[in-house]
């Protein structure tokens, strides 16, 4: 605020001289980021505008329209008892529900689960990582617990937890997030351990800055880039694991339209009606692919050290 006017002019001038693009510019110019980002944007719009995309209520069913192949027209009865002529673009399932509507509405569930899983895993991972990196006495015990958690295959933890809690959106998200927490914790801890050796942190410590303030002001901002990258990969795996849980019949209740649930219903009749599995499967694969491509692009631009490793 109190910067002299001439200093400001100088800084603007020197900024034009520097041709090095900023991180944000590099991110925006990255092809993978663009491709993945645009695909996800489209999926997000699909999720938001699901009711206006020619869908019907995904829970509606009509015994007269059971097992229609894609493209067939049939009847569907609304909750008010009104019978509509409806074109089943992706066919119908064995209850006579519209697969297209269920798949489109399923986009909402998948995106919510993906983002929520990443947020929960990141929140706990950051908390534990900061604690392990800063509190010496806690480091050993906490990391041993994380080692143990990492030794149990992720899907098994999720399956077991959901089995006990009964499937709801919240329990599924937490069950999927828990096995991801150790990875975030390790990442944050290693970042903390390297950043706390930096002169500016030593300076802050010697000035008597309280530890929480150091964590907040000096450590956390430096973990943002790698954590964004990590978050996209957790998001992808969250979407995938939710679909697996629902598909196996242990995830969200079958009446919630999720891609996994649609596929689970289509299993028994796969030989005659493969569309029940293929349409949600394509949406699922494309979504996970988009998130992964976005993550790859972000990693290449935001976290070059990590990009070199794989």
């Amino acid at each position, binding site marked *: 605020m109190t910067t002299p006017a001439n200093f400001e002019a100088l800084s603007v001038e020197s900024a034009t001289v520097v041709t090095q693009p900023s991180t944000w510019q590099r991110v925006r110019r990255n092809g993978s980021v663009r491709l993945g980002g645009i695909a996800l944007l489209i999926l997000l719009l699909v999720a938001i505008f699901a009711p206006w995309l020619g869908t019907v209520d995904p829970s509606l069913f009509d015994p007269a329209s059971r097992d229609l192949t894609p493209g067939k027209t049939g009847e569907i009865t609304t909750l008010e008892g009104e019978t509509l002529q409806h074109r089943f673009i992706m066919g119908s399932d064995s209850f006579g529900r519209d697969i297209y509507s269920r798949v489109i509405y399923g986009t909402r569930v998948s995106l919510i689960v993906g983002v929520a899983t990443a947020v929960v895993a990141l929140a706990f991972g950051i908390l534990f990582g900061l604690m392990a990196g800063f509190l010496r006495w806690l480091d050993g015990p906490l990391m*041993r617990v994380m080692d143990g958690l990492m030794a*149990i295959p992720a899907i098994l933890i999720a399956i077991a937890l959901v*089995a006990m809690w009964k499937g709801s959106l919240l329990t599924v998200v937490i069950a999927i997030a828990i096995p991801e927490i150790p990875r975030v914790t390790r990442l944050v801890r290693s970042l903390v351990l390297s950043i706390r050796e930096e002169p500016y942190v030593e300076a802050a410590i010697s000035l008597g800055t309280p530890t929480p303030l150091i964590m907040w002001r000096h450590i956390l901002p430096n973990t943002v880039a790698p954590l964004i990258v990590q978050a996209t990969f957790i998001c992808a795996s969250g979407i995938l694991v939710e679909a*697996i849980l629902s598909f196996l019949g242990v995830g969200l209740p079958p009446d919630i339209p999720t891609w996994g649930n649609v596929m689970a219903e289509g299993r028994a009749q*796969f030989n005659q009606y493969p569309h029940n599995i293929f349409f949600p499967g394509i949406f699922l694969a494309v979504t996970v*692919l988009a998130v992964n491509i976005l993550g790859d692009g972000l990693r290449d631009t935001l976290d070059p050290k990590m990009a070199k*490793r794989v």
Partner: protein
Amino acid sequence: MLNFLFRRLLSTIPVLLVVAVLVFLMLRLTPGDPAAVLAGDAASTEQIAQIRATLGLDRSVPEQFAIWFGHMLTGDLGQSYYYKMPVTTLIAQRLEPTLSLALITIVIAVVVAVPLGVMAAWRFGGLLDRTLMGFSVLGFSIPVFVLAYLLIWLFSLKLGWLPVQGYKRLSEGLGPWLYQLLLPAVTLSVIYIALIARVTRASVLDTLGEDYIRTARAKGLPEAKVLMRHALANAAVPIITVIGIGIALLIGGVVVTESVYAIPGLGRLTVDAVLARDFPTIQGVILFFSVVYVMINLLVDLSYVFFDPRIRY
């Protein structure tokens, strides 16, 4: 070496201990009462209380853990609620299909992924390299059950080359066993191929920049020999490591694949046990898988000596 072996073995004990505590707590934090589940809906309060007493559920949690842990060390994982037999026996019965599937998958994955990775690194930036990198992102993204149905549809329903579902024991002959498992193993190997090929490529790419590669080429060694004897051999440790870490991925995939292909293995058992809320079985299977995972990674660590003589413990 012996000293290292001993220390490395010791270091797995705390991990396994934590795993045991976590698995135990996971099922103790259940909202429902296992005794009530076991007794069924028609049971009286006295019957439930009696079952609780026989299971030791009326004791304190640390006491229960001590008892459970003690039994576990003697190989007793408890009695399955649903199958009415010892969990250890149940696991032993279901072991063969899962082990077979995992073995064939690993063989396919390594045989396909390592040469692909080496070739991609050799022609870095070329068509094969870019195709492989694209494929590997796809391999990570396509859900194993979607891929499974795609392959069933193509190879079983349309072409009729391979059976849709089921399992034949090894005792019924090597041919039928392999024939039944080929499609599930190919399905499961895709994500594993993506992982191993990527790491092989990166690792070989690193070694190809070394001075000894230039020396080997300068002395006129055929390119194949340079790649195999010098580049790949020196890149082996990260590849072996990722194969070990990938076992976790494989175990997750086994659960799904066995379910789709109706293979009566441990993965199928896990899902069935979860659907039946058969807690001792869930506990046992998770514990078993985790111990296997930890042990395989122990072996991986020890195998470094074999793959890289520079490493001495």
